[in-house]
Protein backbone atom coordinates (compact mmCIF):
# COMPACT_ATOMS: atom_id res chain seq x y z
CA UNK A 1 0.00 0.00 0.00
CA UNK A 2 1.54 3.29 -0.94
CA UNK A 3 1.63 6.10 1.55
CA UNK A 4 -1.05 8.18 -0.12
CA UNK A 5 -3.50 5.32 -0.09
CA UNK A 6 -2.64 4.63 3.51
CA UNK A 7 -3.35 8.23 4.43
CA UNK A 8 -6.76 8.32 2.73
CA UNK A 9 -7.70 4.97 4.21
CA UNK A 10 -6.71 6.32 7.60
CA UNK A 11 -9.07 9.22 7.07
CA UNK A 12 -11.80 6.84 5.95
CA UNK A 13 -11.33 4.98 9.21
CA UNK A 14 -11.27 8.16 11.28
CA UNK A 15 -14.44 9.44 9.63
CA UNK A 16 -16.23 6.19 10.32
CA UNK A 17 -14.89 6.18 13.87
CA UNK A 18 -16.12 9.75 14.37
CA UNK A 19 -19.70 8.85 13.48
CA UNK A 20 -19.46 5.78 15.71
CA UNK A 21 -18.13 7.88 18.56
CA UNK A 22 -20.95 10.39 18.30
CA UNK A 23 -23.51 7.58 18.46
CA UNK A 24 -21.87 5.48 21.11
CA UNK A 25 -20.77 8.24 23.48
CA UNK A 26 -24.42 9.07 24.13
CA UNK A 27 -25.31 5.43 24.54
CA UNK A 28 -22.45 4.93 26.97
CA UNK A 29 -23.25 8.10 28.89
CA UNK A 30 -26.85 7.07 29.43
CA UNK A 31 -25.82 3.62 30.53
CA UNK A 32 -23.12 4.90 32.85
CA UNK A 33 -25.42 7.20 34.75
CA UNK A 34 -28.83 5.63 34.53
CA UNK A 35 -27.88 1.98 34.05
CA UNK A 36 -30.31 1.85 31.15
CA UNK A 37 -29.27 0.25 27.90
CA UNK A 38 -31.14 2.50 25.54
CA UNK A 39 -32.11 0.24 22.66
CA UNK A 40 -33.88 3.18 21.05
CA UNK A 41 -30.63 5.11 20.74
CA UNK A 42 -30.44 4.21 17.06
CA UNK A 43 -33.95 5.54 16.57
CA UNK A 44 -32.90 8.85 18.14
CA UNK A 45 -29.95 8.93 15.74
CA UNK A 46 -32.44 8.47 12.91
CA UNK A 47 -34.56 11.38 14.11
CA UNK A 48 -31.43 13.54 14.22
CA UNK A 49 -30.67 12.62 10.61
CA UNK A 50 -34.16 13.56 9.47
CA UNK A 51 -34.08 16.87 11.33
CA UNK A 52 -30.84 17.92 9.68
CA UNK A 53 -32.16 16.78 6.32
CA UNK A 54 -35.32 18.83 6.80
CA UNK A 55 -33.56 21.98 7.95
CA UNK A 56 -30.91 21.96 5.26
CA UNK A 57 -32.64 20.51 2.23
CA UNK A 58 -36.30 21.31 2.73
CA UNK A 59 -35.97 24.70 4.43
CA UNK A 60 -32.73 26.60 4.23
CA UNK A 61 -30.80 25.16 1.32
CA UNK A 62 -27.31 23.82 1.51
CA UNK A 63 -24.68 26.09 2.98
CA UNK A 64 -22.22 25.92 5.84
CA UNK A 65 -24.30 28.11 8.07
CA UNK A 66 -27.44 26.08 7.41
CA UNK A 67 -25.50 22.96 8.34
CA UNK A 68 -24.58 24.53 11.67
CA UNK A 69 -28.17 25.55 12.28
CA UNK A 70 -29.29 22.05 11.33
CA UNK A 71 -26.88 20.42 13.76
CA UNK A 72 -28.09 22.66 16.55
CA UNK A 73 -31.68 21.89 15.60
CA UNK A 74 -30.95 18.17 15.57
CA UNK A 75 -29.37 18.33 19.01
CA UNK A 76 -32.17 20.49 20.38
CA UNK A 77 -35.04 18.45 18.98
CA UNK A 78 -33.64 15.07 19.89
CA UNK A 79 -32.50 16.24 23.31
CA UNK A 80 -35.98 17.56 24.09
CA UNK A 81 -37.42 14.33 22.77
CA UNK A 82 -35.03 12.67 25.21
CA UNK A 83 -36.33 14.79 28.08
CA UNK A 84 -39.91 13.83 27.25
CA UNK A 85 -38.97 10.16 27.05
CA UNK A 86 -37.13 10.31 30.34
CA UNK A 87 -39.68 12.38 32.27
CA UNK A 88 -42.87 10.80 30.95
CA UNK A 89 -41.91 7.26 30.07
CA UNK A 90 -38.81 6.20 31.96
CA UNK A 91 -39.20 8.01 35.26
CA UNK A 92 -42.20 5.97 36.43
CA UNK A 93 -40.13 2.84 35.87
CA UNK A 94 -37.17 3.67 38.10
CA UNK A 95 -38.51 1.71 41.02
CA UNK A 96 -39.82 -1.14 38.90
CA UNK A 97 -37.96 -4.23 37.70
CA UNK A 98 -35.08 -3.21 35.45
CA UNK A 99 -36.21 -5.30 32.49
CA UNK A 100 -39.17 -2.98 31.99
CA UNK A 101 -36.84 -0.16 30.97
CA UNK A 102 -35.37 -2.43 28.34
CA UNK A 103 -38.81 -3.38 27.09
CA UNK A 104 -39.82 0.25 26.91
CA UNK A 105 -36.81 1.34 24.90
CA UNK A 106 -37.46 -1.58 22.55
CA UNK A 107 -41.07 -0.44 22.11
CA UNK A 108 -39.74 3.04 21.39
CA UNK A 109 -37.86 1.74 18.34
CA UNK A 110 -41.14 0.63 16.81
CA UNK A 111 -42.91 3.83 17.74
CA UNK A 112 -40.21 6.22 16.52
CA UNK A 113 -39.65 4.30 13.27
CA UNK A 114 -43.30 4.52 12.37
CA UNK A 115 -43.65 8.15 13.41
CA UNK A 116 -40.72 9.03 11.17
CA UNK A 117 -42.39 7.14 8.35
CA UNK A 118 -45.60 9.09 8.98
CA UNK A 119 -43.88 12.44 8.86
CA UNK A 120 -41.24 11.97 6.18
CA UNK A 121 -42.57 8.98 4.24
CA UNK A 122 -40.85 5.72 3.55
CA UNK A 123 -38.68 6.87 0.66
CA UNK A 124 -34.95 7.45 0.84
CA UNK A 125 -34.03 10.92 1.94
CA UNK A 126 -30.60 12.11 1.00
CA UNK A 127 -28.55 15.22 0.45
CA UNK A 128 -28.47 16.08 -3.24
CA UNK A 129 -24.89 17.28 -2.86
CA UNK A 130 -22.21 16.68 -0.36
CA UNK A 131 -21.14 19.84 1.37
CA UNK A 132 -17.69 21.12 0.61
CA UNK A 133 -14.81 20.36 -1.68
CA UNK A 134 -12.10 17.74 -1.43
CA UNK A 135 -8.42 17.73 -0.52
CA UNK A 136 -6.12 15.86 -2.86
CA UNK A 137 -3.63 13.33 -1.57
CA UNK A 138 -1.82 12.12 -4.63
CA UNK A 139 -4.52 10.77 -6.90
CA UNK A 140 -6.88 10.26 -3.97
CA UNK A 141 -9.27 12.69 -2.40
CA UNK A 142 -10.39 13.37 1.10
CA UNK A 143 -13.68 15.26 1.24
CA UNK A 144 -13.39 18.24 3.51
CA UNK A 145 -16.60 17.03 5.12
CA UNK A 146 -14.64 14.04 6.44
CA UNK A 147 -12.23 16.40 8.13
CA UNK A 148 -15.05 18.53 9.48
CA UNK A 149 -16.73 15.43 10.92
CA UNK A 150 -13.52 14.27 12.55
CA UNK A 151 -13.07 17.74 14.06
CA UNK A 152 -16.65 17.76 15.31
CA UNK A 153 -16.12 14.39 16.99
CA UNK A 154 -12.88 15.59 18.57
CA UNK A 155 -14.58 18.77 19.68
CA UNK A 156 -17.42 16.83 21.25
CA UNK A 157 -14.93 14.57 23.01
CA UNK A 158 -13.06 17.57 24.45
CA UNK A 159 -16.30 19.30 25.38
CA UNK A 160 -17.52 16.22 27.19
CA UNK A 161 -14.19 15.96 28.98
CA UNK A 162 -14.44 19.58 30.05
CA UNK A 163 -18.05 19.13 31.06
CA UNK A 164 -17.37 16.12 33.26
CA UNK A 165 -14.19 17.37 34.90
CA UNK A 166 -14.70 21.11 35.19
CA UNK A 167 -18.38 21.93 35.51
CA UNK A 168 -20.43 21.34 38.62
CA UNK A 169 -23.13 19.50 36.70
CA UNK A 170 -20.60 17.21 35.11
CA UNK A 171 -19.03 16.48 38.47
CA UNK A 172 -22.40 15.72 39.97
CA UNK A 173 -23.23 13.37 37.11
CA UNK A 174 -19.95 11.59 37.63
CA UNK A 175 -20.70 11.32 41.33
CA UNK A 176 -24.01 9.69 40.49
CA UNK A 177 -22.33 7.16 38.30
CA UNK A 178 -20.15 6.11 41.22
CA UNK A 179 -22.82 5.94 43.86
CA UNK A 180 -26.43 6.94 43.65
CA UNK A 181 -27.01 6.78 47.40
CA UNK A 182 -24.01 8.83 48.38
CA UNK A 183 -24.89 11.42 45.79
CA UNK A 184 -28.40 11.66 47.15
CA UNK A 185 -27.05 12.04 50.67
CA UNK A 186 -24.73 14.80 49.49
CA UNK A 187 -27.80 16.67 48.38
CA UNK A 188 -27.39 16.18 44.64
CA UNK A 189 -30.70 16.33 42.87
CA UNK A 190 -30.31 12.99 41.14
CA UNK A 191 -33.75 13.23 39.62
CA UNK A 192 -32.94 16.35 37.63
CA UNK A 193 -29.54 15.05 36.64
CA UNK A 194 -31.05 11.89 35.24
CA UNK A 195 -33.14 14.00 32.91
CA UNK A 196 -30.10 16.09 32.07
CA UNK A 197 -27.94 13.11 31.24
CA UNK A 198 -30.62 11.42 29.17
CA UNK A 199 -31.11 14.64 27.25
CA UNK A 200 -27.36 14.96 26.78
CA UNK A 201 -27.08 11.39 25.51
CA UNK A 202 -30.05 11.81 23.21
CA UNK A 203 -28.66 15.12 21.94
CA UNK A 204 -25.41 13.36 21.02
CA UNK A 205 -27.41 10.76 19.08
CA UNK A 206 -29.20 13.62 17.32
CA UNK A 207 -25.91 15.26 16.42
CA UNK A 208 -24.59 11.92 15.15
CA UNK A 209 -27.58 11.58 12.86
CA UNK A 210 -27.16 15.13 11.63
CA UNK A 211 -23.47 14.69 10.92
CA UNK A 212 -23.99 11.34 9.21
CA UNK A 213 -26.90 12.19 6.92
CA UNK A 214 -25.11 14.23 4.22
CA UNK A 215 -22.98 11.23 3.28
CA UNK A 216 -25.39 8.49 4.21
CA UNK A 217 -28.98 7.98 3.14
CA UNK A 218 -31.82 8.47 5.59
CA UNK A 219 -34.67 5.99 5.77
CA UNK A 220 -36.95 4.76 8.55
CA UNK A 221 -35.19 1.92 10.30
CA UNK A 222 -31.69 3.27 9.63
CA UNK A 223 -31.14 3.36 13.38
CA UNK A 224 -31.32 -0.40 13.73
CA UNK A 225 -28.36 -0.73 11.39
CA UNK A 226 -26.30 1.73 13.36
CA UNK A 227 -26.98 0.53 16.87
CA UNK A 228 -25.38 -2.92 16.81
CA UNK A 229 -21.90 -1.67 16.02
CA UNK A 230 -22.17 0.96 18.75
CA UNK A 231 -22.96 -1.83 21.22
CA UNK A 232 -19.66 -3.37 20.21
CA UNK A 233 -17.92 -0.01 20.62
CA UNK A 234 -19.09 0.63 24.16
CA UNK A 235 -18.43 -2.92 25.27
CA UNK A 236 -14.89 -2.76 23.94
CA UNK A 237 -14.29 0.65 25.49
CA UNK A 238 -16.09 -0.01 28.74
CA UNK A 239 -19.68 0.86 29.37
CA UNK A 240 -20.20 4.27 30.87
CA UNK A 241 -16.79 5.59 29.87
CA UNK A 242 -16.61 8.40 27.33
CA UNK A 243 -12.90 7.77 26.86
CA UNK A 244 -13.82 4.13 26.29
CA UNK A 245 -16.33 5.09 23.61
CA UNK A 246 -13.62 7.23 22.00
CA UNK A 247 -11.01 4.48 21.95
CA UNK A 248 -13.58 1.81 21.12
CA UNK A 249 -14.75 3.79 18.10
CA UNK A 250 -11.18 4.10 16.90
CA UNK A 251 -10.58 0.37 17.31
CA UNK A 252 -13.77 -0.57 15.48
CA UNK A 253 -13.27 2.04 12.77
CA UNK A 254 -9.64 1.17 12.11
CA UNK A 255 -10.08 -2.59 12.28
CA UNK A 256 -13.05 -2.48 9.96
CA UNK A 257 -11.42 -0.30 7.32
CA UNK A 258 -8.10 -2.09 7.30
CA UNK A 259 -9.62 -5.55 7.54
CA UNK A 260 -11.67 -4.71 4.46
CA UNK A 261 -8.35 -4.28 2.66
CA UNK A 262 -6.36 -7.12 4.15
CA UNK A 263 -8.90 -9.92 4.54
CA UNK A 264 -12.45 -8.79 3.77
CA UNK A 265 -14.08 -12.10 4.76
CA UNK A 266 -13.26 -11.22 8.35
CA UNK A 267 -14.31 -7.59 8.18
CA UNK A 268 -17.29 -7.87 10.52
CA UNK A 269 -16.28 -10.98 12.42
CA UNK A 270 -13.06 -9.31 13.59
CA UNK A 271 -14.97 -6.66 15.52
CA UNK A 272 -16.81 -9.26 17.55
CA UNK A 273 -13.67 -11.31 18.05
CA UNK A 274 -11.82 -8.23 19.35
CA UNK A 275 -14.75 -7.61 21.63
CA UNK A 276 -14.72 -11.14 23.02
CA UNK A 277 -10.96 -11.14 23.55
CA UNK A 278 -10.95 -7.79 25.33
CA UNK A 279 -13.75 -8.88 27.63
CA UNK A 280 -11.91 -12.05 28.48
CA UNK A 281 -8.90 -10.15 29.73
CA UNK A 282 -10.58 -6.98 30.93
CA UNK A 283 -14.08 -7.87 32.05
CA UNK A 284 -15.21 -4.27 32.18
CA UNK A 285 -13.82 -3.25 28.81
CA UNK A 286 -10.75 -1.13 28.24
CA UNK A 287 -11.75 1.88 30.34
CA UNK A 288 -14.70 0.60 32.28
CA UNK A 289 -14.64 0.22 36.01
CA UNK A 290 -16.76 -1.68 38.43
CA UNK A 291 -19.96 0.28 38.42
CA UNK A 292 -22.39 0.76 41.18
CA UNK A 293 -25.07 -1.85 41.24
CA UNK A 294 -28.31 -1.10 39.51
CA UNK A 295 -30.90 0.63 41.60
Amino acid at each position, binding site marked *: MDINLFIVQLFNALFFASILFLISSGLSLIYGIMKILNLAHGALYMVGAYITFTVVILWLGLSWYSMVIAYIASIAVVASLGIYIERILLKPLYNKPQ*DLQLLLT*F*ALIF*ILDDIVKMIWGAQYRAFPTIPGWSLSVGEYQIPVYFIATILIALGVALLLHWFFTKTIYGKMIRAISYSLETSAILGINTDKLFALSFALGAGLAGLAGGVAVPLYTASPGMGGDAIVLSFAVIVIGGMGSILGAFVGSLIVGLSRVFMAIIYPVFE*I*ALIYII*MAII*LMFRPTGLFGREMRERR
Partner: protein
Amino acid sequence: MMFKIDNELYSLITLFIFLAVIPQFLSIYNVRLLSVGLLYGLAAVGFNLLYGYTGLLSFGHAMFWSAGAYGLAIGLVKLNLDPLMSILLAFTLTFTVAIVTGYLSLRHTEIYFAMLTLAFAQLIYALIIKLRDITGGDEGIYGIPRFPSDIGGYYYLIYIIVFILVILAWWIVRTPLGLGFQAVRDNPYRAEALGLDVRRVRLISFVLSGFYLSIAGMLYAPLNRAITPDIAFWTFSAIIVIMTIIGGSKNVLGAFIGGLIFIYINTQAMNLTEFWQLTLGIILALLVYLAPYGIVGIFERVLRYVRGG
Protein backbone atom coordinates in the same frame (compact mmCIF):
# COMPACT_ATOMS: atom_id res chain seq x y z
CA MET B 1 -40.67 -38.60 43.39
CA MET B 2 -43.26 -36.70 45.29
CA PHE B 3 -44.15 -33.20 44.37
CA LYS B 4 -46.90 -30.87 45.28
CA ILE B 5 -49.43 -30.12 42.59
CA ASP B 6 -49.65 -26.36 42.68
CA ASN B 7 -51.67 -23.65 40.99
CA GLU B 8 -49.11 -23.23 38.28
CA LEU B 9 -49.31 -26.86 37.25
CA TYR B 10 -53.10 -26.74 37.34
CA SER B 11 -53.03 -23.71 35.07
CA LEU B 12 -50.52 -25.30 32.72
CA ILE B 13 -52.49 -28.55 32.47
CA THR B 14 -55.73 -26.67 31.90
CA LEU B 15 -54.05 -24.58 29.24
CA PHE B 16 -52.68 -27.68 27.55
CA ILE B 17 -56.02 -29.47 27.62
CA PHE B 18 -57.47 -26.40 25.96
CA LEU B 19 -54.62 -26.41 23.43
CA ALA B 20 -55.28 -30.06 22.65
CA VAL B 21 -58.94 -29.53 21.90
CA ILE B 22 -59.04 -26.10 20.32
CA PRO B 23 -57.45 -26.99 16.93
CA GLN B 24 -60.54 -29.04 16.13
CA PHE B 25 -62.50 -25.80 16.01
CA LEU B 26 -59.95 -23.66 14.23
CA SER B 27 -59.23 -22.96 10.60
CA ILE B 28 -56.04 -24.37 9.17
CA TYR B 29 -54.45 -20.93 9.31
CA ASN B 30 -55.21 -20.54 12.99
CA VAL B 31 -53.76 -23.98 13.69
CA ARG B 32 -50.62 -22.81 11.96
CA LEU B 33 -50.59 -19.63 14.00
CA LEU B 34 -51.09 -21.65 17.15
CA SER B 35 -48.19 -23.91 16.17
CA VAL B 36 -45.94 -20.89 15.92
CA GLY B 37 -47.39 -19.68 19.22
CA LEU B 38 -46.50 -22.96 20.91
CA LEU B 39 -42.95 -22.72 19.61
CA TYR B 40 -42.57 -19.11 20.74
CA GLY B 41 -43.97 -20.19 24.08
CA LEU B 42 -41.45 -23.01 24.29
CA ALA B 43 -38.67 -20.60 23.40
CA ALA B 44 -39.81 -18.19 26.11
CA VAL B 45 -39.95 -20.99 28.69
CA GLY B 46 -36.43 -22.08 27.77
CA PHE B 47 -35.13 -18.53 27.78
CA ASN B 48 -36.77 -17.95 31.12
CA LEU B 49 -34.87 -20.81 32.74
CA LEU B 50 -31.80 -18.65 32.20
CA TYR B 51 -33.38 -15.24 32.60
CA GLY B 52 -36.13 -15.54 35.20
CA TYR B 53 -34.65 -18.39 37.18
CA THR B 54 -30.89 -17.96 36.93
CA GLY B 55 -30.90 -14.19 36.59
CA LEU B 56 -28.89 -13.91 33.38
CA LEU B 57 -30.17 -11.74 30.55
CA SER B 58 -29.01 -13.18 27.25
CA PHE B 59 -29.39 -10.98 24.22
CA GLY B 60 -28.36 -13.66 21.79
CA HIS B 61 -30.71 -16.57 22.22
CA ALA B 62 -31.67 -16.45 18.56
CA MET B 63 -28.38 -18.28 17.99
CA PHE B 64 -29.78 -21.40 19.61
CA TRP B 65 -33.05 -21.25 17.72
CA SER B 66 -31.08 -20.95 14.49
CA ALA B 67 -28.58 -23.63 15.54
CA GLY B 68 -31.49 -26.05 15.87
CA ALA B 69 -33.27 -24.92 12.73
CA TYR B 70 -30.15 -24.76 10.58
CA GLY B 71 -28.68 -27.97 12.01
CA LEU B 72 -31.81 -29.89 11.09
CA ALA B 73 -32.25 -28.23 7.70
CA ILE B 74 -28.62 -28.73 6.71
CA GLY B 75 -28.85 -32.39 7.72
CA LEU B 76 -32.10 -33.04 5.91
CA VAL B 77 -31.68 -30.95 2.78
CA LYS B 78 -27.99 -30.29 2.19
CA LEU B 79 -26.47 -33.53 3.49
CA ASN B 80 -29.44 -35.82 2.81
CA LEU B 81 -29.17 -37.43 6.23
CA ASP B 82 -32.04 -39.35 7.74
CA PRO B 83 -34.13 -37.47 10.30
CA LEU B 84 -32.50 -39.04 13.31
CA MET B 85 -29.00 -38.15 12.16
CA SER B 86 -30.18 -34.65 11.30
CA ILE B 87 -31.60 -34.19 14.78
CA LEU B 88 -28.34 -35.46 16.18
CA LEU B 89 -26.46 -32.98 14.00
CA ALA B 90 -28.67 -30.15 15.24
CA PHE B 91 -28.11 -31.16 18.85
CA THR B 92 -24.37 -31.41 18.34
CA LEU B 93 -24.34 -27.97 16.77
CA THR B 94 -26.41 -26.54 19.60
CA PHE B 95 -24.24 -28.16 22.22
CA THR B 96 -21.06 -26.83 20.64
CA VAL B 97 -22.46 -23.32 20.34
CA ALA B 98 -23.79 -23.43 23.89
CA ILE B 99 -20.59 -24.72 25.48
CA VAL B 100 -18.27 -22.37 23.62
CA THR B 101 -20.33 -19.22 23.97
CA GLY B 102 -21.35 -20.19 27.49
CA TYR B 103 -17.77 -20.77 28.58
CA LEU B 104 -16.67 -17.44 27.18
CA SER B 105 -19.60 -15.27 28.16
CA LEU B 106 -20.40 -16.67 31.61
CA ARG B 107 -17.30 -15.01 33.00
CA HIS B 108 -19.54 -11.99 33.07
CA THR B 109 -22.94 -11.13 34.40
CA GLU B 110 -25.54 -8.45 33.87
CA ILE B 111 -25.05 -6.13 30.94
CA TYR B 112 -21.67 -7.47 29.86
CA PHE B 113 -23.11 -10.95 29.63
CA ALA B 114 -25.98 -9.59 27.56
CA MET B 115 -23.59 -7.77 25.25
CA LEU B 116 -21.29 -10.77 24.86
CA THR B 117 -24.14 -13.10 23.97
CA LEU B 118 -25.34 -10.46 21.52
CA ALA B 119 -21.87 -10.37 19.98
CA PHE B 120 -21.70 -14.13 19.61
CA ALA B 121 -25.18 -14.24 18.11
CA GLN B 122 -24.23 -11.57 15.58
CA LEU B 123 -21.08 -13.50 14.78
CA ILE B 124 -23.19 -16.58 14.08
CA TYR B 125 -25.54 -14.48 11.96
CA ALA B 126 -22.55 -13.25 9.96
CA LEU B 127 -21.33 -16.83 9.60
CA ILE B 128 -24.72 -18.02 8.32
CA ILE B 129 -24.65 -15.31 5.68
CA LYS B 130 -21.03 -16.06 4.81
CA LEU B 131 -21.03 -19.86 4.68
CA ARG B 132 -23.53 -19.94 1.88
CA ASP B 133 -22.44 -23.28 0.50
CA ILE B 134 -23.69 -24.88 3.69
CA THR B 135 -26.39 -22.50 4.85
CA GLY B 136 -27.64 -21.03 1.60
CA GLY B 137 -26.54 -17.57 2.77
CA ASP B 138 -29.29 -14.98 2.77
CA GLU B 139 -31.45 -17.16 0.55
CA GLY B 140 -31.64 -19.79 3.22
CA ILE B 141 -32.70 -23.38 2.80
CA TYR B 142 -36.04 -24.39 1.38
CA GLY B 143 -37.80 -27.67 0.79
CA ILE B 144 -37.35 -29.05 4.30
CA PRO B 145 -39.60 -32.13 4.65
CA ARG B 146 -42.31 -32.16 7.29
CA PHE B 147 -43.78 -35.13 9.08
CA PRO B 148 -46.71 -35.42 9.42
CA SER B 149 -47.03 -33.35 6.33
CA ASP B 150 -50.36 -31.69 7.12
CA ILE B 151 -50.42 -28.77 9.52
CA GLY B 152 -53.14 -30.35 11.64
CA GLY B 153 -51.03 -33.43 12.25
CA TYR B 154 -47.80 -31.52 12.69
CA TYR B 155 -49.49 -29.34 15.27
CA TYR B 156 -49.89 -32.35 17.51
CA LEU B 157 -46.25 -33.33 17.10
CA ILE B 158 -45.30 -29.84 18.21
CA TYR B 159 -47.92 -29.98 20.93
CA ILE B 160 -46.59 -33.20 22.43
CA ILE B 161 -42.98 -32.06 22.46
CA VAL B 162 -43.85 -28.63 23.81
CA PHE B 163 -46.08 -30.16 26.46
CA ILE B 164 -43.34 -32.49 27.64
CA LEU B 165 -40.72 -29.76 27.68
CA VAL B 166 -42.87 -27.16 29.42
CA ILE B 167 -43.84 -29.61 32.12
CA LEU B 168 -40.18 -30.61 32.33
CA ALA B 169 -39.26 -26.96 32.88
CA TRP B 170 -41.93 -26.73 35.57
CA TRP B 171 -40.37 -29.79 37.11
CA ILE B 172 -36.75 -28.71 36.86
CA VAL B 173 -37.31 -25.50 38.76
CA ARG B 174 -38.72 -27.58 41.58
CA THR B 175 -35.71 -29.88 41.85
CA PRO B 176 -32.52 -29.09 43.75
CA LEU B 177 -30.96 -28.05 40.45
CA GLY B 178 -33.68 -25.47 39.88
CA LEU B 179 -33.34 -24.27 43.47
CA GLY B 180 -29.67 -23.76 42.72
CA PHE B 181 -30.60 -21.67 39.65
CA GLN B 182 -32.73 -19.41 41.80
CA ALA B 183 -30.11 -19.10 44.51
CA VAL B 184 -27.56 -18.00 41.91
CA ARG B 185 -30.07 -15.50 40.58
CA ASP B 186 -30.79 -13.99 43.98
CA ASN B 187 -27.34 -13.87 45.48
CA PRO B 188 -24.44 -15.47 43.66
CA TYR B 189 -21.92 -14.42 46.33
CA ARG B 190 -23.84 -16.04 49.13
CA ALA B 191 -24.47 -19.11 46.97
CA GLU B 192 -20.74 -19.40 46.41
CA ALA B 193 -20.11 -19.03 50.12
CA LEU B 194 -22.57 -21.84 50.80
CA GLY B 195 -20.56 -24.09 48.54
CA LEU B 196 -22.46 -23.82 45.27
CA ASP B 197 -20.33 -23.90 42.13
CA VAL B 198 -21.91 -20.80 40.64
CA ARG B 199 -20.21 -20.92 37.25
CA ARG B 200 -21.19 -24.52 36.78
CA VAL B 201 -24.82 -23.82 37.71
CA ARG B 202 -24.89 -20.94 35.27
CA LEU B 203 -23.40 -23.05 32.50
CA ILE B 204 -25.92 -25.84 33.08
CA SER B 205 -28.74 -23.33 32.94
CA PHE B 206 -27.31 -21.69 29.81
CA VAL B 207 -26.94 -24.98 27.96
CA LEU B 208 -30.32 -26.26 29.09
CA SER B 209 -32.01 -23.08 28.01
CA GLY B 210 -30.14 -23.24 24.71
CA PHE B 211 -31.51 -26.70 24.09
CA TYR B 212 -35.06 -25.51 24.63
CA LEU B 213 -34.57 -22.83 21.98
CA SER B 214 -32.85 -25.31 19.71
CA ILE B 215 -35.72 -27.76 19.88
CA ALA B 216 -38.14 -24.94 19.16
CA GLY B 217 -36.02 -24.06 16.14
CA MET B 218 -35.90 -27.69 15.05
CA LEU B 219 -39.68 -27.83 15.07
CA TYR B 220 -39.95 -24.45 13.38
CA ALA B 221 -37.89 -25.35 10.30
CA PRO B 222 -40.21 -28.16 9.13
CA LEU B 223 -43.28 -26.12 10.05
CA ASN B 224 -42.26 -23.46 7.56
CA ARG B 225 -40.42 -25.98 5.37
CA ALA B 226 -37.91 -23.20 4.68
CA ILE B 227 -35.63 -20.97 6.73
CA THR B 228 -33.77 -17.73 6.14
CA PRO B 229 -31.14 -16.10 8.37
CA ASP B 230 -33.51 -13.58 9.92
CA ILE B 231 -34.07 -16.10 12.73
CA ALA B 232 -30.45 -15.46 13.74
CA PHE B 233 -30.65 -11.66 13.73
CA TRP B 234 -30.49 -9.69 16.96
CA THR B 235 -34.05 -8.43 16.66
CA PHE B 236 -35.26 -11.98 17.02
CA SER B 237 -33.20 -12.32 20.19
CA ALA B 238 -34.87 -9.14 21.40
CA ILE B 239 -38.29 -10.58 20.62
CA ILE B 240 -37.49 -13.64 22.72
CA VAL B 241 -36.64 -11.35 25.63
CA ILE B 242 -39.67 -9.17 25.08
CA MET B 243 -42.24 -11.94 24.94
CA THR B 244 -40.88 -13.45 28.13
CA ILE B 245 -41.19 -10.14 29.94
CA ILE B 246 -44.66 -9.60 28.53
CA GLY B 247 -45.87 -12.92 29.89
CA GLY B 248 -44.05 -12.62 33.18
CA SER B 249 -40.60 -13.91 33.97
CA LYS B 250 -41.56 -15.08 37.45
CA ASN B 251 -42.57 -18.57 36.47
CA VAL B 252 -42.86 -21.09 33.67
CA LEU B 253 -46.53 -20.38 33.03
CA GLY B 254 -45.88 -16.67 32.52
CA ALA B 255 -43.17 -17.16 29.95
CA PHE B 256 -45.24 -19.71 28.05
CA ILE B 257 -48.26 -17.40 27.92
CA GLY B 258 -45.96 -14.58 26.87
CA GLY B 259 -44.90 -16.50 23.78
CA LEU B 260 -48.47 -17.41 22.86
CA ILE B 261 -49.78 -13.91 23.37
CA PHE B 262 -46.95 -12.13 21.60
CA ILE B 263 -47.83 -13.98 18.40
CA TYR B 264 -51.41 -12.79 18.64
CA ILE B 265 -50.53 -9.21 19.51
CA ASN B 266 -48.09 -9.08 16.61
CA THR B 267 -50.57 -10.58 14.16
CA GLN B 268 -53.42 -8.39 15.28
CA ALA B 269 -51.34 -5.23 15.15
CA MET B 270 -50.54 -5.92 11.53
CA ASN B 271 -54.18 -6.59 10.71
CA LEU B 272 -55.39 -3.42 12.31
CA THR B 273 -53.35 -0.83 10.54
CA GLU B 274 -50.66 0.06 8.11
CA PHE B 275 -48.78 1.48 11.08
CA TRP B 276 -48.51 -1.84 12.82
CA GLN B 277 -45.11 -1.04 14.29
CA LEU B 278 -46.50 2.00 16.04
CA THR B 279 -49.45 -0.04 17.29
CA LEU B 280 -47.22 -2.84 18.51
CA GLY B 281 -44.90 -0.34 20.13
CA ILE B 282 -47.76 1.36 21.96
CA ILE B 283 -49.17 -1.97 23.13
CA LEU B 284 -45.75 -3.00 24.44
CA ALA B 285 -45.30 0.35 26.16
CA LEU B 286 -48.74 0.12 27.74
CA LEU B 287 -47.96 -3.36 29.02
CA VAL B 288 -44.88 -1.93 30.72
CA TYR B 289 -47.05 0.34 32.85
CA LEU B 290 -50.20 -1.74 33.20
CA ALA B 291 -48.60 -5.13 33.69
CA PRO B 292 -45.15 -4.65 35.21
CA TYR B 293 -45.13 -8.25 36.37
CA GLY B 294 -46.33 -9.59 33.07
CA ILE B 295 -49.70 -10.85 32.00
CA VAL B 296 -49.53 -13.57 34.62
CA GLY B 297 -49.05 -10.80 37.16
CA ILE B 298 -52.44 -9.43 36.14
CA PHE B 299 -54.04 -12.86 36.49
CA GLU B 300 -52.61 -13.17 39.95
CA ARG B 301 -53.82 -9.74 40.95
CA VAL B 302 -57.30 -10.53 39.67
CA LEU B 303 -57.27 -13.87 41.44
CA ARG B 304 -56.19 -12.28 44.69
CA TYR B 305 -58.89 -9.65 44.30
CA VAL B 306 -61.57 -12.30 43.63
CA ARG B 307 -60.47 -14.24 46.67
CA GLY B 308 -60.68 -11.02 48.61
CA GLY B 309 -56.98 -10.97 49.51
